[in-house]
C-alpha cells in the first residue's frame, strides 16, 4: 500500500500522500473520514453545550440563586443555543450526510471532495473561534436570535457580539459550502438506475435540507453582514438611537433564516427514522411518494411562517392571521409523516434495538413538540406563551426530543457500518431510558412554568411565584440526561475497539450502504451497482436476512440480489477490496492540504477582526487580517490548480 502511495509523481515534492496517521487525517478528502471527523468534533461540541446547559440548570435549581453572575448566565444561554445548533446538531447531521449519502446513492465520494474537507475545517476553526470568546470573558450574550438593538454598539459595546457576527459568518460559510456539495452530489453522482424516486428517504431529506441551508444561510449571512458593518464600520441598519432604524428588520431577516433552520435540524431526522423504522419493522416505508413530497412540502412551507416568532412585536392583525394559518398548514405534512410511520410499523415484525427505541421515542416526543407548535400558531394565545418557558419546553421537545433522539437513533444504526462494530445494546438501553426519562423530567415541567408566568432568559426568579419545585425537577432531569450521555460516550468509545463485530449488514437493511464491508473500503464500491428498486438489498428473498436476533445477518446474504448481481458476488468483490484502490484501477482524488490552509486563512481573516476592536496594544494587529487575506488568495490559487491525479 505504501508503495502505491510513494509512487506519486516526484515533481510534486509537497503533495501529501500519507494514508495513516495524523497527517492522513489532516489531508484527507475521503467523505467517510470527513464524516467521522465531523461526528467526533460535533459530539465534543455537544458535550460542551451540555455542560453549559448544566451550569444554567444549576443556577436555576433554586430561586434567587447567585451561583453565577447575570452576565455569565446570559453568555451561557446564548452559547448553549449557538453551540448546540451550529456546532453540534447541524454538524452531526452533516456527519451522517457525509458518511452515508454517497454510500446510499452508490457513489465513490461526494462531487467535490476537497470542498468537503474545506467545509469541515472551516466548521472546526469557526467553532473554536466562537468558543475562544470564553477566554476573553466575552462570549455572545444576547441569545441565539440576538435581537437588535441590544446587539448594536450603543447597547452592546463589548466584544461579545463581535464574536457572534464573525464566528457565525465563518461557521455559516462552512454550511453553505457543504450543502452545495451535497446537492450536486445527490443530483449528479447517483448509481445507474437510481432515479430520484428510488433514492433512499435519508438521501432525499439530505437534499431538501441542503437546499434549505443554502437558501436560509444566505439570508442569515446578509443579516450578520449588516450587523458586522454596523458594529465595525458605522453603518446604520439596526442603529435605533441616532439613525432611527426599525429593529424589526433584524427580526424579519433572522427568522427568515431561523425558521427554516428549525427544519434544517428536523428534516434530516425525518430521513433517519425513515430508514430505521422500515429496517426494524421488516417492512418497506409506507407511502414512499407521500413521504418524499411531505418532506419537500415541510421545507417549502418552512419559508412562509417566520413571523409566527413575532406575534408580540406588533405586525397587525392581517400579518398575524397569515402567519397563524401558514404555520398551522405545516402540521398537515408533519402529521402525514407520523401516521406513515405508524403505517410502516403496522403489520411489521418490530425489533426493539436501541436505534429503533430512539426512533419510536422520537415519534412521541416530536409529536408532543408538534402539538405545542400548533398551540404557538394560535396567535392570540401565543401572546401568553411566547418568550416564556412554554416556548423553551416546545423548542426542546423539537430539538432534543426530535433532533437529538433522532440523531442518536442514526448513530446506533450506522455506527456498525462506520466502525465495523456494534454499539453495546445494554449500555444502549441505559442511555435510552436515562435520556428519555431525563428529557421529560427536564422539559415537561417547563410547559407549566411558562403558563404560570416564568419568562425565558431570566437569570433568576422570585421564590414566591411557585416556580421552585418544577425548576428543581428540571435541574434533576438535566443531570440525568448528562449521566446518560456519559454512558453513551463510553459506549461510543469502547465499542470502537471492543464492540461485537458487525458484518456487512447487521440489521438486515435494504439500502446500498449495507451491501459492502463494514467499515467500507476507501473507494466504497468496487464496481458501481446497477439499481432496480428502492430497496436493492430486499429485492431477492428478504426472509434470508430475517429471523436473527436484532436482525443480524450472518453469512446468508448470498441469495439477495443487488441490481441483478448476487450480493455474494459483490461480497467477493469486497474481499478483493482488501487491495488498494490503485490495485483495482480505481481513481480516487488525492489528499490535499489546501483545504485546511484555506480554512485557516478564512478563519484568520475574520477572527483577526476581533483584535481591531480592542484598545491598546492589540489595536495594531491589522497585519493579521492581511495575513489571513493573503493566505486565502494563495490557497485558492493553489487549490484551483492542484492536479487531480497523484500519478
Amino acid at each position, binding site marked *: 500500500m505504501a508503495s502505491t502511495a510513494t509512487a506519486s509523481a516526484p515533481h510534486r515534492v509537497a503533495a501529501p500522500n500519507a494514508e495513516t496517521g495524523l497527517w492522513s487525517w489532516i489531508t484527507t478528502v475521503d467523505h467517510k473520514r470527513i464524516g467521522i471527523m465531523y461526528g467526533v468534533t460535533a459530539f465534543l461540541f455537544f458535550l460542551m453545550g451540555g455542560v453549559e446547559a448544566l451550569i444554567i440548570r444549576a443556577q436555576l435549581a433554586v430561586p*434567587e440563586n447567585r451561583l453565577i453572575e*447575570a*452576565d455569565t448566565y*446570559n453568555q451561557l444561554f446564548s452559547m448553549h443555543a449557538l453551540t448546540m445548533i451550529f456546532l453540534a446538531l447541524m454538524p452531526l447531521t452533516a456527519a451522517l450526510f457525509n458518511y452515508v449519502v454517497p454510500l446510499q446513492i452508490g457513489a465513490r465520494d461526494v462531487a467535490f471532495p476537497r470542498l468537503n474537507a474545506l467545509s469541515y475545517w472551516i466548521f472546526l476553526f469557526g467553532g473554536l473561534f466562537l468558543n475562544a470568546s470564553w477566554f476573553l470573558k466575552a462570549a455572545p450574550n444576547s441569545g441565539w436570535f440576538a435581537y437588535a438593538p*441590544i446587539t448594536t454598539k450603543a*447597547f452592546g459595546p463589548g466584544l461579545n457580539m463581535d464574536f457572534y457576527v464573525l464566528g457565525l459568518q465563518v461557521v455559516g460559510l462552512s454550511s453553505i459550502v457543504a450543502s452545495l456539495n451535497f446537492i450536486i452530489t445527490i443530483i449528479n453522482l447517483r448509481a445507474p438506475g437510481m432515479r430520484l424516486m428510488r433514492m433512499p428517504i435519508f438521501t432525499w431529506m439530505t437534499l431538501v435540507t441542503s437546499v434549505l441551508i443554502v437558501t436560509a444561510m444566505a439570508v442569515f449571512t446578509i443579516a450578520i453582514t449588516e450587523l458586522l458593518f454596523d458594529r465595525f464600520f458605522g453603518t446604520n441598519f439596526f442603529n*435605533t*438611537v441616532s439613525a432611527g*432604524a426599525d429593529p424589526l428588520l433584524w427580526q424579519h431577516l433572522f427568522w427568515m433564516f431561523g425558521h427554516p433552520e428549525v427544519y434544517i435540524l428536523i428534516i434530516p431526522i425525518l430521513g433517519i427514522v425513515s430508514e430505521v423504522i422500515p429496517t426494524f*419493522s*421488516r*417492512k*418497506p416505508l*409506507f*407511502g414512499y*411518494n*407521500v413521504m418524499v413530497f411531505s418532506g419537500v412540502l415541510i421545507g417549502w412551507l418552512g419559508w412562509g411562517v417566520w413571523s409566527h416568532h413575532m406575534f*408580540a*412585536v*406588533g405586525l397587525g392583525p392581517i400579518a398575524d*392571521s397569515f402567519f*397563524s*394559518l401558514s404555520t*398551522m398548514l405545516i402540521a398537515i405534512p408533519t*402529521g402525514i409523516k*407520523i*401516521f406513515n410511520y*405508524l*403505517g410502516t*410499523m403496522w403489520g411489521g*415484525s*418490530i425489533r426493539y434495538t436501541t436505534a429503533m427505541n430512539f426512533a*419510536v421515542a422520537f415519534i*412521541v416526543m416530536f*409529536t*408532543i413538540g408538534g*402539538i405545542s407548535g*400548533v*398551540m404557538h*400558531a*394560535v396567535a*392570540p*394565545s401565543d*401572546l*401568553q406563551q*411566547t*418568550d*416564556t418557558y412554554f416556548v423553551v419546553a416546545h423548542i426542546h421537545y423539537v430539538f432534543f426530543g426530535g433532533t437529538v433522539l433522532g440523531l442518536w437513533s442514526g448513530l446506533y444504526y450506522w455506527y456498525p457500518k462506520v466502525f465495523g462494530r456494534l454499539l453495546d445494546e445494554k449500555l444502549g438501553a441505559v442511555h435510552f431510558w436515562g435520556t428519555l426519562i431525563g428529557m421529560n423530567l427536564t422539559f415537561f415541567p417547563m410547559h407549566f412554568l411558562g*403558563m*404560570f*408566568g416564568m*419568562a425565558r*432568559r*431570566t437569570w*433568576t426568579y422570585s421564590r*414566591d*411565584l411557585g416556580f421552585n419545585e418544577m425548576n428543581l425537577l428540571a435541574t434533576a432531569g438535566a443531570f440525568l440526561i448528562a449521566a446518560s450521555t456519559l454512558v453513551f460516550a463510553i459506549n461510543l468509545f469502547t465499542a470502537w475497539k471492543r464492540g461485537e463485530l458487525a458484518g456487512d449488514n447487521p440489521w438486515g437493511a435494504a439500502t446500498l450502504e449495507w451491501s459492502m464491508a463494514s467499515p467500507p473500503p476507501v473507494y466504497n464500491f468496487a464496481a458501481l451497482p446497477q439499481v432496480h428498486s428502492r430497496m436493492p438489498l*430486499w429485492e431477492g428473498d428478504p*426472509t434470508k436476512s430475517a*429471523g436473527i436476533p436484532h436482525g443480524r445477518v450472518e453469512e446468508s446474504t448470498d441469495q439477495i440480489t443487488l441490481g441483478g448481481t448476487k450480493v455474494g458476488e459483490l461480497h467477493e468483490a469486497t474481499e478483493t477490496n482488501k487491495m488498494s484502490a490503485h490495485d483495482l484501477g480505481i481513481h480516487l482524488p488525492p489528499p490535499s492540504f489546501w483545504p485546511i490552509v484555506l480554512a485557516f486563512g478564512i478563519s484568520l481573516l475574520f477572527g483577526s477582526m476581533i483584535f481591531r476592536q480592542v484598545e491598546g496594544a492589540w489595536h495594531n494587529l491589522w497585519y493579521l487580517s492581511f495575513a489571513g487575506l493573503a493566505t486565502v488568495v494563495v490557497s485558492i490559487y493553489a487549490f484551483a490548480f492542484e492536479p487531480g491525479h497523484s500519478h
Partner: protein
Amino acid sequence: MKSTGSLGRPHANGAATGTPSRAAAGRTRLGALALPLLLLAAGCGPDHLKHYPATTFAPVTSYAREQDWLFRYVLVLGVAVGIVVFAALAYVLVRFRHRPGAAEPQHVHGNTTLELAWTLIPAVILAFIAVPTVKAIFSTQAPAPANALHIVVMGKQWWWQFKYPVNGGRDTVLTANEIHVPVGRPVELILKSDNVLHSFWVPQMGGKRDLVPNHDNKLVFTPEEPGVYYGQCAEFCGDSHALMRMRMIAQTPEDFQRWLDNEASAAAEPADSAVMLGRQLVTSKPCVGCHTIKGTVMAGVTGPNLTHFGRRRTMAAGIMDNNAQNLATWLRDAPHVKPGSKMPDMKTLNLKDEEIPYIVAYLQSLQ
C-alpha cells in the same frame, strides 16, 4: 449571599393577596376544564392563584379571557389528537413486536385511502382551530374605544416608566414600576422604548406586547376587577432582564382618580427634622442628576420619578417590598442587587452609612 433574601419578597403586597372573588372566578373556569389530571399535576385547583401568583390561568380581562379560552380549546384538541396517536402507536408497538418464528411481514407500500384520510382529517381539525384564531386575532387587536385612558409605557434598562395624561391631556404625570388602572374603563397602553427591546406582560391582564424602539405598539384591555397583579418584562433586555418586574394595580375609578390627583401634586414637605435632613442629603448628593422629585430641585430623568415614592408597594422594578431595610440595602449597593444597574453603589454616590437612615426616612415620607 445576604442581599438575595431581600429579593424574595415581591409578593407580600403583590398578587398573592389578590381579591378572593377573582380567585373564585378563576376557580370555576378551571373546574370546568375537562383535563383534571393534567391540571392536578400542575397544581391547579382552588388555591391555584395562591400558589402561582403570576399564572396565566386566572384571567381578569376579556382580552385575557379570550386568549385563555383559545388556549384551553386548542389544548383539548391537541391532547385528544395526542391520545389518539399515542394509543395507536402503543397498539402497534405491542401488537406487531417481533415474535420468534413469526412469518416475514408482507411488503405493503402504501394505501391511498388511508393516506388521504390522515391528510384530510388533520386539515379539518385545523380549520376548527383556524376560524376562532383569526376571529380572536382581530378582536384582541381592535382599536381602542373613544373613552379609553391612554397610558404611555416606556421600557428602561431595567425598570418601567408610566406616563398619564392629567388636566385634560395638557399635563402629564410620570411614575414608575407600578401601573395604576381604573376598573371598568378601557385602557390603551402606548408601548415605547428608547433603548433596547422589552415586553409588557401582566399575565392576568393578558398576553404580552413588545416595546420596540422607533415602532410604537398598542395594547388595549379593560380591567374588570380591583387587585394587584404581577408583571414581568418578557423580552430579553440585558443583564437584569430577570429583575425587571412590575405590579399592575387595578382600582375603582374613585380610588384611581384620588391616586392620580395625588401623583400630580408636588412632593410632601418634610414633617420633622430627620426627614428634613434626608431631603437635604438627597438634594445635595448625585441623586439629583438622575431622579426627579417634584417640588425640589431634583429634575433628573435617567432614573425613576420619586415624587411619590413612599406610596409604592415595591421598589427597584418590583423585585422587593418598599421598606426601610430593602431601601437601605439598595442605597448601599444597587449594582449588586440589580446587576448592570445605572444606580451606583454608596461610595460612588458619596453616601456615608450614617446618612442612609435619613435618606430612607425622606423617601418613605414621599406619600
